[in-house]
């Protein structure tokens, strides 16, 4: 292969490095206004009155919005297909605020400073209502809130699902050992360095164009249309360059507001949040509490597992129930478990809203189950690697819960190669130190899906054309979030057609020009859109050769297209460039050289990862430092090696945060988010990053483009449990509440001391 598996530099590299790329917040339009939001200081309150007189008097203020003068149409920001029947419970501005950070009002003004100043002058009279912040309390509390109009009703649980197969109770009854844990995972912020931002432009014909660094232009279009009660075709959404997302910009949050402000003021409106707004008022990772019981036979084979989990949807339901569903979908896809029961609920709390987050559901469920496995290994007196090797799935196993086959699942190789490269046995059995600092090693496995197939509708569409200048033009609704999606598509098209990547233009999504597609979500892009692009490319190549056959006066089968040139397989000097061919086709061919391809996948294999880490814990301060990480992945054929390594590096970075540092940390008394700025929400910096080694096992997923499958999400999933396991190995503790802050580690050590003395 010429381009697949190489390290082609990211396509947008030069404009990003030179500072010339215009992200949404860098755009400037004539007569553009700026909007600022006023956010709720209370976790649950009825708005009795809003006095905007002082704000309105500020020179430069154009308009002020609140629940009093905006549509009362309810929507659910998690949908991505028109008419998807998700329960709507959110509106532009609610008369009842449900968390600290909920939207109260907005000021639109000539400039940002004026809007911000005026927003602070709005006077709101609140009637405070009881609030609930803790997941388990919320689960017990049932009724949480209600709008005055009584619609909708915010009542717990939002969802209640059971997945069961085999005979779990019977298997538990014959178990040699049952290991039980309660694991808590935190509410976290994506922390894309670009804050949330949107630019909406009211066009002269009454339509609205929305520029947004989103993950799905169609989701934005459907939700804006719904919130504003406009026909879909009045909204055009253009994907803007994205300064990081990780799921955070997956659901439309600012777009409906910004579009409405623009529609009313009839001017372009920019709405950009500051970091506080991005952390508290957009989306977060659903916190979770899981209780897991696993039954083993005496050889360490898993006989059965029983899990109960509650996910925290936050103040609006969004896709809270889907996150719990995603947790359930992983159950039978990592280990061979013949009997299993999962019961999961999603609940409202008066805290920031949950949504999509890299490793959707997988991060939570793997934390719950992989920490549990470490404890099981300890009690079985087995090495955690050995225990996993006894139970891991094999290629093309069926999903016992009824999902699609696991595909060419090479997790066993990941674990074997990883253990060897990490020198696992020696490191695991090394003394942990008897001084103040203790060392430990831990590992974890993980799986994540490749698209929606098996759970939700899935499709991709691409139009690929040969341009008159000999370049190729791929029109498919792509959203490059910074991972290099555009680059990967260029590699796939170039490889399949026989052109060079710089000849392939890949514009990003625009509802004005693209057919529907779900967007950058569910780890679907490389595997599904990539496969669609590969098939379209092969079809286009066949078309090119058919036309070339006219020019060469031969059969298409006797021609080769390589390096942008066509030549005969039987020698001869004749070369025809793609540009010449395009010109020839324009004049002589009955058809244009263009194909439109619609693709529906029929598989959803797992991507797999095994992660090995070494930590050092300071037993005096409770501070944990990750020293060394080895991550081994089965992603089939990596399309771009450097980009793939970069995904793993970033996934490790985020996973370390999840294990040790990151937490919105909601105050249990006031509902305030304590981790509400970058000085209070800790993100690992360069000196704190451990040594890292990244490996990919030899593997091909036959249903993916050139054997490739997804990486971005699975890359972060095993990190947190591996670190927790390493800390517990170092200390002999069984800590299960993430993140392992110094306070929690010290508390765990104190508890352990007391137990030892008792």
């Amino acid at each position, binding site marked *: 292969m010429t381009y697949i598996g190489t390290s082609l530099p990211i396509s947008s590299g030069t404009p990003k490095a030179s500072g010339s790329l215009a992200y949404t917040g860098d755009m400037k339009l004539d007569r553009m206004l700026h909007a600022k939001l006023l956010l709720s200081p209370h976790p649950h309150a009825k708005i009795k009155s809003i006095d905007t007189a002082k704000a309105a008097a500020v020179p430069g203020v154009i308009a002020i919005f609140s629940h009093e003068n905006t549509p009362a149409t309810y929507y659910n920001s998690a949908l991505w297909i028109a008419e998807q029947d998700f329960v709507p419970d959110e509106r532009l501005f609610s008369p009842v605020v449900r968390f600290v950070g909920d939207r109260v009002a907005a000021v639109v003004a000539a400039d940002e400073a004026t809007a911000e100043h005026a927003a602070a002058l709005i006077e709101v009279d609140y009637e405070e209502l009881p609030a609930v912040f803790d997941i388990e309390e919320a689960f017990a509390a049932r009724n949480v809130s209600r709008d005055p109009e009584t619609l909708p009703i915010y009542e717990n649980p939002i969802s209640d699902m059971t997945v069961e197969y085999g005979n779990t109770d019977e298997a538990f009854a014959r178990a040699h050992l049952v290991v039980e844990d309660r694991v808590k995972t935190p509410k976290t912020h994506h922390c894309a360095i670009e804050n949330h931002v949107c630019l909406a432009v009211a066009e002269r014909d009454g339509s609205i164009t929305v520029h947004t660094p989103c993950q799905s232009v169609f989701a934005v279009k459907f939700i804006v249309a719904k919130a504003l009660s406009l026909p879909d075709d009045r909204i055009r959404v253009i994907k803007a360059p994205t*300064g990081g997302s990780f799921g955070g910009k997956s659901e439309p949050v600012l777009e409906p507001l910004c579009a409405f402000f623009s529609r009313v003021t009839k001017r372009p409106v920019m709405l950009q949040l500051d*970091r506080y707004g991005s952390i508290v008022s957009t989306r977060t990772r659903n916190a979770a509490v899981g209780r897991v019981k696993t039954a083993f036979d005496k050889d360490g084979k898993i006989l059965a597992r029983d899990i109960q989990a509650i996910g925290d949807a936050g103040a609006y339901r969004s896709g809270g129930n889907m996150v719990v569903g995603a947790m359930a979908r992983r159950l039978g896809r990592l280990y061979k478990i013949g009997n299993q029961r999962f019961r999961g609920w999603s609940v409202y709390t008066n805290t920031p809203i949950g949504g999509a987050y890299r490793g959707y559901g997988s991060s939570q469920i793997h934390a719950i189950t992989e920490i549990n496995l470490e404890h099981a290994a300890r009690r079985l007196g087995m090495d955690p690697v050995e225990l996993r090797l006894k139970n891991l799935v094999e290629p093309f196993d069926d999903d016992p819960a009824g999902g699609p086959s696991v595909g060419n699942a090479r997790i066993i190789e990941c674990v074997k190669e990883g253990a060897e490269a990490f020198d696992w046995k020696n490191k695991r059995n090394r003394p942990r130190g008897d001084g103040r600092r203790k060392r430990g090693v831990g590992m974890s496995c993980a799986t994540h899906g490749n698209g929606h197939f098996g759970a939700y509708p899935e499709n991709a569409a691409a139009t690929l054309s040969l341009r008159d200048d000999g370049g190729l033009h791929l029109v498919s609704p792509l959203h490059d979030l910074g991972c290099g999606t555009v680059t990967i598509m260029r590699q796939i098209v170039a490889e399949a057609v026989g052109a060079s990547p710089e000849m392939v233009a890949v514009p990003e999504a625009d509802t004005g020009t693209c057919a529907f597609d779900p967007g950058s979500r569910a780890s679907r892009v490389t595997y599904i859109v990539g496969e669609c692009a590969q098939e379209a490319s092969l079809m286009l190549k066949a078309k090119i050769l058919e036309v070339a056959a006219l020019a060469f006066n031969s059969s298409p089968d006797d021609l080769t297209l390589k390096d942008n040139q066509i030549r005969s397989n039987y020698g001869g000097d004749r070369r025809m460039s793609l540009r010449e061919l395009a010109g020839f086709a324009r004049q002589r061919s009955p058809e244009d050289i263009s194909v439109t391809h619609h693709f529906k996948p029929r598989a959803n294999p797992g991507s797999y990862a095994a992660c090995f880490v070494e930590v050092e814990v300071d037993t005096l301060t409770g501070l944990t430092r990750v020293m060394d990480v080895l991550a081994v992945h089965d992603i089939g054929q990596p399309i771009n090696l450097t980009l793939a390594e970069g995904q793993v590096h970033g996934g490790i970075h985020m996973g370390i945060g999840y294990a040790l540092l990151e937490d919105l940390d909601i105050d249990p008394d006031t509902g305030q988010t304590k981790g509400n700025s970058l000085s209070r929400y800790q993100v690992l910096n*360069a000196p704190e990053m451990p040594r890292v080694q990244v490996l990919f096992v030899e593997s091909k997923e036959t249903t993916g483009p050139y054997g490739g499958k997804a990486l971005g999400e699975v890359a972060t999933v095993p990190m947190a449990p591996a670190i927790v396991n390493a800390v517990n190995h170092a200390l002999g503790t069984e800590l299960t509440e993430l993140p392992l802050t110094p306070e929690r580690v010290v508390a765990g050590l104190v508890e352990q001391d007391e137990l030892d003395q008792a």
Partner: protein
Amino acid sequence: MKLDLNINGEDLEVDVSGSELLSDVLRSKLDLTGVKEGCREGECGACTVLMDDMAVNSCLVLAIQATGRRIVTVEGLAQQDALDKIQEAFVEHGAIQCGYCSPGMIMAAKALLLREPRPTRHAIRDALAGNLCRCTGYLNIIKAIEAALLPPRDREERL
């Protein structure tokens, strides 16, 4: 008030208010939007520029404090459209994903190079301590800086 500023080698007269931040002036008044913002409190480094060859967070500097200093933003690095070798190395070595931290990172690296032509890996990591990246885990950024600054034999193989 009118300020005399030296930005990217050019002397400019800019109209600002006394409390205006350098980052705001660069972005809004001079259209130097390569200067990014992620926090406005000195935590993320996206707004890093050079002030007399030192890396500073322009969101923590008042525009008036920049008078009489040489300010260089990422836009001032490329010479006649040819990228600086640090910029080139960033593109080449996977140091750029979403790119939002890149201008700040590149300026932090530039400052390091100006004060220390042969930094150790440790010094490189420390020089980036004030710049957050959420995409790359920093490793390819460190690699890129080493590639730009050091001859191949001085680069460490393992990240």
